[in-house]
């Protein structure tokens, strides 16, 4: 695994409230690389997040809009954020409920640029 990709993931997990970050194959919903996913089932995060993002992309397409460039699923006990990169890859973060969304989004975008 390229070290710049791993260091991009570490930049995401350094943000307070981020439990883990990973690169996911968007079409297959499989983990490509992950960082600090303690206590989190990485395979489940990858599969389920890719599912939400793919489904949302079909809804935005039906609405005559482009595919999502950022997705944030917010739940009472935490959240999932995803930024699709170029090609089939997507950067995903699992967060606590209290997290600086703007900062995580920024780091996700940076990481997405690295994997492009």
């Amino acid at each position, binding site marked *: 695994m390229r070290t710049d990709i791993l260091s991009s993931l570490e930049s995401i997990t350094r943000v307070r409230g981020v439990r883990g970050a990973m690169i996911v*194959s968007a*079409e297959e*919903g*499989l983990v490509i690389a992950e960082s600090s996913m303690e206590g989190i089932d990485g*395979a*489940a995060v990858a599969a*389920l997040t*890719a599912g939400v993002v793919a489904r949302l992309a079909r809804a935005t397409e039906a609405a005559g809009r482009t595919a999502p460039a950022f997705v944030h699923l917010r739940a009472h006990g935490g959240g999932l954020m995803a930024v699709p990169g170029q090609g089939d890859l997507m950067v995903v973060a699992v967060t606590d409920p209290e997290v600086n969304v703007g900062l995580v989004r920024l780091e996700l975008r940076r990481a997405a640029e690295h994997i492009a």
Partner: protein
Amino acid sequence: MRVIEPWVAEPLQRFLAESSARVVLLTTASGQVVAQHGFTRALDVMSASALGAAIMASTEELGRLTASGASRSLSHQGPSRGLFLAGFDLPQGRWIGLVVYDRDSSLGLVRLFFDRLVKELRVVAPTETPAREVLAADFENELNASLRSLFGR
């Protein structure tokens, strides 16, 4: 969904609902059909179960031959549909699952929920039924009986 073993029904129904898989076939390692969903013709079930059993047997043998270990699962991605094939062990013996999915699902989701299906089957599988070897002579009769039951004919 049609099942031969009633205890398979509930976990399989959950798998179908969660994974959004289009076609599922559960067979024994020798190709006897245990459950199916989404097949429309008995002939397709017969071919798929025989091919699935053969692929798993040859892949496992290849794994032994090359010392790369037994293969847990295989997948194939077509232009619009994907195929997932996996072997797993139950008190009844080795079973094979064949799953076909489309863009409503993904390999990741199928794998995730298939693992859960296997765990649930292990919990509900009756343990008192001893695994028995299938004789070649019985095989065709058993297969035909399974298909009649699965397709209500």
